């Protein structure tokens, strides 16, 4: 079980969670990035402007 960065709510994650995955906080809906899967570490996912690159 991990804590949301924004509202501290519990964030349930599947056992198959991978580093780099994005999950939404069930309480406040903030987009969270799984910065580390073992030990579990969450961070706010970077803002996303529309897309670029070739």
């Amino acid at each position: 079980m991990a804590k949301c960065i924004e509202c501290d709510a519990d964030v349930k994650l599947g056992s198959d969670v991978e580093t780099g995955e994005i999950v939404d906080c069930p309480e406040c809906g903030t987009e969270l990035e799984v910065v580390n899967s073992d030990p579990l570490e969450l961070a706010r996912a970077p803002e996303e402007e529309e897309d670029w690159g070739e």
Partner: protein
Amino acid sequence: MIVIKVGGSRGINYDRVCADLSGLYQRGEKFVLVHGGSYETNLLSEKLGKPPRFVTSASGYESRFTDRETLEIFSMIYCGKMNTAIVEKLQALGVKAIGLSGVDGRLLEGVRKASVKIIENGKRRILHGDYTGKVERVNTELIHLLAGAGYVLVVSPPAISFEGEAINVDGDRAAAKIAEALKADKLIILSNVPGLLRDVADESSLVPHIIPSQLDSYMEIALGRMKKKIMAAGEALAAGVGEVVLADARIEQPILRAVAGQGTVIKA
């Protein structure tokens, strides 16, 4: 002034493209060429044991995940093989061509987006270490300096970030930015399709003419890379470019026909 973007996908005949450009040059027409290289980049990536990784963003936008090693392979094809060969062909046809990438003299400068949100195997993920970005500033002084001395510019990605890192950018949208910066009369985007097709499987279902105000409504029938071309066309028109033509690079005299309006013409 015409900005001409020719793609790098399979089946595009650069001998024909360069023969047409030489015709424009002899007629005293001012133009800038922007070229691609994606197909050959994929081939080289495979050969070097680092197959290309295409990722799709949440909004369905496909792009090449460009880490540092991919960026080097990208430069080897765009700046090395393609740019040098195109300039060589034009020089042999008597055109005073000069090849530049967006890194040279910060010709194409923009913002790097170091991480990208993608959907892969149904999971939303963030990839870091991505050297992609968007062109925000064009060094028009450099273009006018060289064009003023009679040189024809042959431009290729990558661009350069404000911090000074090479970044992979979409060639169609970079061409739109150049057209905007030069207040070009026309932006021509040539690829391996006749233009915007109602039915991708039917090459005769070409949409011949679109009025800029209706452009967004055509976004639905545009698939894959064509989406980006429509996006690029919209940006160019909104910034004052007179006309955008989406045309076929594989046919005889591809550029002369596109300049004459053969393809999808987007114009008021």
